[in-house]
């Protein structure tokens, strides 16, 4: 009980007296910290910053319910929550050096998740607005076998290929292998010599870049 109180104290202080907020959250001994979930996660993230893969995968796995809670608090629906989880995990990976082990891991993670949830809601709002117009466009669309239709499709395909060509080499390779050639992860991995994990992350980043390019949103 006293340990739990110690764990939450800096957060309370930080919100009241941000300048003098205590730094006694330090996790100097990862083993003794494992009995309190938040301290355990802080210790794992600190170890992950040093390159401990097992600690990293553990802390990310324990982060998922926290991300979902943060997303729900922002009003994100269950069907959008997976996107928020994915985006938050990728952001955590990119900015993991900004975590200060003397402070709350949960507060650090929840802030990133809340920001990603807001981004997802904004993106969904823009998409909804566009789909409204797309519906109208569908009503006004000419006959199915219109000759212009085929030309338009060809142009769209050409634009997509051009966009893929501008991607960084790693992302382009992932799209070509997994998307265009429809290879399995194992086949693509064997063919390119890259690990399947790297291919998956590159594919995710490529899809995000393409979405941004065509729809002007991340």
């Amino acid at each position, binding site marked *: 009980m006293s340990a739990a109180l110690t764990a939450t104290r800096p957060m309370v202080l930080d919100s009241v007296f*941000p300048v003098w907020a205590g730094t006694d959250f330090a996790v100097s001994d990862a083993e003794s910290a494992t009995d309190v979930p938040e301290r355990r996660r802080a210790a794992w993230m600190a170890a992950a910053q040093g390159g401990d893969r097992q600690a990293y*995968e553990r802390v*990310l796995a324990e982060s*998922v319910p926290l991300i979902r809670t943060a997303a729900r608090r922002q009003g994100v629906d269950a069907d959008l929550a*997976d996107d928020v989880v994915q985006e938050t*995990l990728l*952001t955590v990976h990119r900015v993991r050096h*900004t975590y200060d082990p003397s402070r*709350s891991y949960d507060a650090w993670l929840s802030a990133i998740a809340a920001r990603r949830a807001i981004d997802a809601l904004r993106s969904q709002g823009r998409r909804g607005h566009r789909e409204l117009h797309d519906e109208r466009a569908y009503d006004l669309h000419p006959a199915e076998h219109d000759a212009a239709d085929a030309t338009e499709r060809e142009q769209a395909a050409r634009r997509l290929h051009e966009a893929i060509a501008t991607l960084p080499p790693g992302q382009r390779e992932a799209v070509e292998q997994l998307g265009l050639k429809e290879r399995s992860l194992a086949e693509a991995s064997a063919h390119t010599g890259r690990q399947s*994990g790297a291919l998956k992350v590159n594919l995710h980043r490529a899809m995000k870049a393409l979405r941004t390019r065509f729809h002007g949103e991340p």
Partner: protein
Amino acid sequence: MENPEHMSESRLPESLIQSLGVQLTPVRRLPPPWLRTAGWLLAVAAIALALLWHYGAEHMLRRWVAEPDIAVAGIGALITAVSAAWAAFTLGVPGRPAGWAWLPLPGLLLWVGASGLGCLRDIVVPGATVATAHQSGDCLMFIISLSLPLSALLVWLLRRACPLRPVLTAVMIGLASAAASAALLEICHGFAVAATDLVTHAIAVGIVVLANALMGGRLLQPALK
């Protein structure tokens, strides 16, 4: 016993977690905000030394003795610069409260209050050397042109940070660099704090803060793209 709902939730991004685990490399932690603030202040101190070397301290000290409110305003500007820079670096760390943005307020009140009192005193005691519109224009240019490299340095020092409120952070950067420039201006400032001069300073600070808010919001978000 595990909650089945929790298990299904956790299983969903399992492959992504493994992928990120595979790509894990050791990282260099971000130094604490106070240390990065100190780094930026070193640059401000270097500019102050260069100005003192060029203009000397005698003129500045004579003005301070004659009009102590100028010295108080200068100290207020310096406190604003330090606290705004500290707030900017702190807001660059996820999870730190937005309340940090209030940190420069006491320094700002001291700076504006002392400058305002200086104006009043000059009205009551006429005859002090006040700036012409042209000379005030020089102050404007001094503050803006010095704020530019100081803002750029702050943005560069924040390149590895992750400001989740980029516009607020950019406002802090603008305030820090404009306040530091105004404090440095005191070394070579030749006039009493007249209303025209105070308005010029306020315009310069406003331009710097606004420019940072408009541009900094974009510059500070590489980690979130």
